[in-house]
């Protein structure tokens, strides 16, 4: 259903704004960026200086990095007040820029003084009391709302601190904010303003300055070393599941597999770099290390570089099962089951399994449980009969 003419070429060209490059998103993906519909707490200067989102000149969507921004949350001093019949035009200044905000007066009629009679005829005294209470509550709330509306219909003073949320708009060639929310903030000691600036600095560094990456674009395009390692790790996992005859392997052996080397060569081509054998070996070691963290393979011992595929190691499986069975006889564990770290300790006493990690034991225990060889008594405790 995506029939956006200009969207496709825009997304393919990437613009360099700083060291990192990012590409603008086609409109289809805007909704995936949490900043698109959020009220972004920007500095006024950035609201004024942001470019219109490339390729979409009429949508009132602006680009900060590649974030499609349409709504902002601003806090600043009121430095000019203009009143019209139905709206106020406040100019607010946060020290970085001045922007004008259109704040519509609430339309609720406030000068109607008559109080609405909410009471309904009651039958029992208990019901009457409850209704009386409810009527008072409603009257209180109505008064509060009316007071708030009256305040919003009064112009704020110069120097007041105004908090505005709204959409960025362009009015006669000038950028302004159409407020959906505006309140005067009581800030006698300036602490609200100070905290706000600190919060903004944190938000900018953690979120706004980080270009948005649509999910799924990381794979294949990520040409950093971590990306290559991840791609290689996935390729090794695929290779192992496709070749069920591989019970264990050496890292040097992996480097002879064509499908895995092609991943490395592709990365070399993209980076225009050549790697020596040592660097390739380190890539493979990192990728296999990642698989070991996931509990798919484990290193047999620290001395050699032989890795064992866990699901195909029947010796490990039977050793774990034996340990759980034996420990379940122990009166200490017969009730609640024994903890998986205790199983790990027992397992590591055998020289053959000295390099096994906790994740591996967890995976084996899960497998045994799914085969109904053992039972888990709690999240980390297992028992066998």
């Amino acid at each position, binding site marked *: 259903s995506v029939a956006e003419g200009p969207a496709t070429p825009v997304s393919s060209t990437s613009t360099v704004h*700083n060291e990192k490059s990012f590409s603008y998103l086609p409109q289809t993906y805007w909704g995936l960026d949490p900043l698109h519909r959020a009220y972004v707490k920007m500095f006024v200067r950035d609201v004024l200086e942001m470019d219109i989102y490339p390729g979409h000149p009429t949508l009132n969507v602006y680009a900060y990095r590649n974030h499609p921004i349409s709504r902002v949350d601003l806090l600043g001093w009121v*430095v000019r007040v203009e009143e019209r019949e139905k709206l106020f035009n406040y100019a607010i200044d946060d020290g970085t820029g001045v922007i004008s905000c259109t704040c519509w007066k609430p339309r609720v009629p406030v000068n109607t003084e008559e109080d609405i009679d909410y009471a309904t005829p009651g039958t029992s005294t208990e019901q009457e009391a409850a209704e009386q209470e409810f009527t008072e509550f409603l009257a209180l709330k109505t008064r509060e709302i009316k007071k708030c509306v009256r305040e919003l219909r009064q112009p704020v003073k110069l120097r007041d601190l105004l908090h505005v949320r709204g959409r960025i708009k362009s009015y006669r060639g000038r950028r302004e904010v159409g407020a959906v929310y505006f309140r005067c903030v009581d800030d006698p000691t300036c602490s609200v303003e100070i905290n706000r*600036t*600190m919060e903004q*600095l944190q938000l*900018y560094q953690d979120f706004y300055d980080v270009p948005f990456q649509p999910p799924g674009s990381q794979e294949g395009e990520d040409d950093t070393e971590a990306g290559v390692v991840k791609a290689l790790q996935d390729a090794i996992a695929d290779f192992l599941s496709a070749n069920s005859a591989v019970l264990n392997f050496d890292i040097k052996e992996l480097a002879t597999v064509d499908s895995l080397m092609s991943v490395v060569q592709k990365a070399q081509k993209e980076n225009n770099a050549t790697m020596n054998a040592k660097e390739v070996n380190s890539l493979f070691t990192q990728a296999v290390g990642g698989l070991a963290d996931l509990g798919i393979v484990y290193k047999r011992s620290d001395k050699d570089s032989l890795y064992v595929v866990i699901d195909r190691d029947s010796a490990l499986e039977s050793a774990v099962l034996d340990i759980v069975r034996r420990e379940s006889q122990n009166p200490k564990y017969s009730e609640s089951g024994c903890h998986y770290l205790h199983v790990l300790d027992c397992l590591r006493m055998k020289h053959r399994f000295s390099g096994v990690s906790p994740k591996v034991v967890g995976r084996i225990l899960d497998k045994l449980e799914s085969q109904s060889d053992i039972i888990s008594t709690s999240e980390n405790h297992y028992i066998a009969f």
Partner: protein
Amino acid sequence: MARNLPGSGEIVRICEIFQRGAEEFDGRAVRVMGKLETHDIVDCTAELSNVERAQKSSPHQELAVNTRLIEPFQARLGSIFQMVGEVEFTAHGPLLHARVVKCVDGIDTAVYYRVLDMQRHYLKGRLALQV
């Protein structure tokens, strides 16, 4: 509507106006903070003094203020005020034509200026990246 917006008052220290001088600040809008030392409601003049005691490098400096646009205000001597206005460099030194004034007694000046420095540092660092 919304024709002439005032310039944005860059937040500065009083001593910075003296240091950085006329070329940079003449006619520009600034937001300063200082202690009200003198106030003359007839002549519409006032003087704000530096509130940063910790910084030994900045001497005690007083900024002359023209208060014509903000009279009458609750001008209690000794209170700390923030003012937004345009700086004019006269023969006697800088003069601030204040147009917005706010009393901020009880402000934590140390934190205020530290956050100002953090914000400047951030904006400067980002500018360098974007060029």
